């Protein structure tokens, strides 16, 4: 009968308690909300796993996609940045749990202090994610898509036999041709297109043919690495080019399979949205702490409840980090 015995606890009344399983109803509901939200994220990550297993032979390699670090231009720095983001989020989780701990001792000043740093940590994380998205959308090297929907990247083999990527801008020719962007008020009625790539397919193809050391890097993975074609094969393959792809959008991306960018935007976006709402809720609770709402209540359980949500956001990031960047 443990679940129905209620100890007399005045403050619990304002937090929706006492309830079953030794917790207040408020806290229980937060736990079960987290449970369902965790299953939502599991669904997304499992779907990512499904698509990845389905296209395991051609899936983009994360190390080759996320290589940027602030102020280090042109330096190949895989994973350092997301590792930094992970630390930021874990640290803001620590300040959150310190705030909860201070709440147990009814130390208003300390709770406010730690909550403030939690909010700052959340904002830094959101800024970092915006930067990550910016790099992902902008792209680095550019690629072409073939008639069959496969992505061809370019590069050359240097003297030591190491493969090195080459950007479209480094070899595409400028040809005397003009292609006007289709907008709603020109050409066919009510048809428009997004901005045109910097080069036409023809300019890329001619530029490729003109430089003898360039070869094509295919999507195929052999022995954990993308397969590069030799020059003869490359010259034959380049004729399949249909689109020039720069950066990433929801239709196509220069990194490889189309689903890769879709999952990236969707999963990190949904997680970022959770961080954003977490920051908002933290701000509300922060002001309540400052105003003394919980001081009057003699209970900081609200801080504990938003804390649960905040840790959950951190927990999800741990998994996103593993399955998007490491595995």
């Amino acid at each position: 009968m443990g679940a129905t015995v209620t100890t007399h606890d005045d403050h619990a009344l304002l937090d929706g308690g006492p309830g079953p399983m030794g917790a207040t109803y408020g806290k229980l509901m937060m736990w079960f909300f987290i449970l369902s939200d965790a299953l939502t994220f599991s669904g997304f990550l499992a779907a990512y796993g499904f698509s990845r297993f389905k296209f395991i032979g051609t899936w983009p390699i994360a190390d080759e996609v996320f290589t940027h670090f602030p102020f280090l231009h042109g330096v190949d720095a895989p994973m350092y940045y997301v590792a930094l983001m992970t630390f930021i989020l874990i640290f803001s989780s620590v300040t959150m749990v310190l705030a909860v701990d201070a709440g147990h001792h009814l130390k208003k000043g300390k709770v406010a202090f730690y909550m403030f740093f939690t909010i700052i940590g959340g904002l830094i994380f959101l800024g970092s994610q915006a930067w990550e998205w910016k790099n992902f959308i902008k792209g680095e090297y550019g690629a072409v898509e073939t008639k069959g929907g496969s992505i061809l990247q370019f590069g050359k083999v240097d003297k030591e036999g190491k493969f090195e990527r080459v950007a479209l801008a480094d070899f595409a020719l400028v040809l005397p041709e003009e292609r006007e962007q289709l907008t709603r008020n020109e050409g066919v009625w009510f048809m428009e297109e997004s901005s045109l790539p910097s080069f036409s397919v023809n300019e890329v193809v001619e530029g490729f043919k003109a430089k003898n050391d360039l070869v094509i890097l295919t999507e195929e993975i052999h022995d954990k690495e993308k397969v590069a074609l030799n020059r003869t094969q490359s010259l034959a393959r380049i004729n399949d080019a249909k689109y020039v792809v720069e950066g990433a959008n929801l239709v196509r991306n220069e990194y490889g399979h189309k689903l890769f960018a879709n999952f990236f935007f969707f999963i990190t976006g949904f997680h970022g949205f959770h961080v954003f709402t977490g920051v908002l809720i933290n701000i509300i609770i922060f002001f309540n702490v400052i105003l003394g709402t919980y001081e009057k209540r003699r209970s900081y359980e609200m801080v504990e409840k938003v804390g649960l949500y905040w840790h959950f956001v951190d927990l999800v990031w741990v998994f996103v980090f593993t399955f998007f960047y490491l595995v």
Partner: protein
Amino acid sequence: MEHAHESNTKRIWIVFGLLSVITTVEVALGIIKPDFLFRGHFLSTSILNWIFIILTLVKAYYIMWAFMHLEGEKASLRWSVVAPLIFLILYLCFIVLVEGDYIYEVYKNGHLEWIF
């Protein structure tokens, strides 16, 4: 609420240290990619991937137990949250990943090329 008046600050910092160390190890392994782990194969993925997954689960355990304070809750609450998660996620991963691998085989051995 037996945990209400004792301070957990020390434990919090220890857990933070643990999580940081695990993350650092993960990133280091991800960058170095030791050959025998990276190319070693175990249960349809590399040994390195299994290490990442296990370390992630360890991190998840510490976040849920220490930060979300499941260790201080009653066993009934703990299990009603953790058991559905473990069961449903394992089940989902099992059916979805096996199916994904099956479709990969179909694409690979079929007579139609899908992406070329």
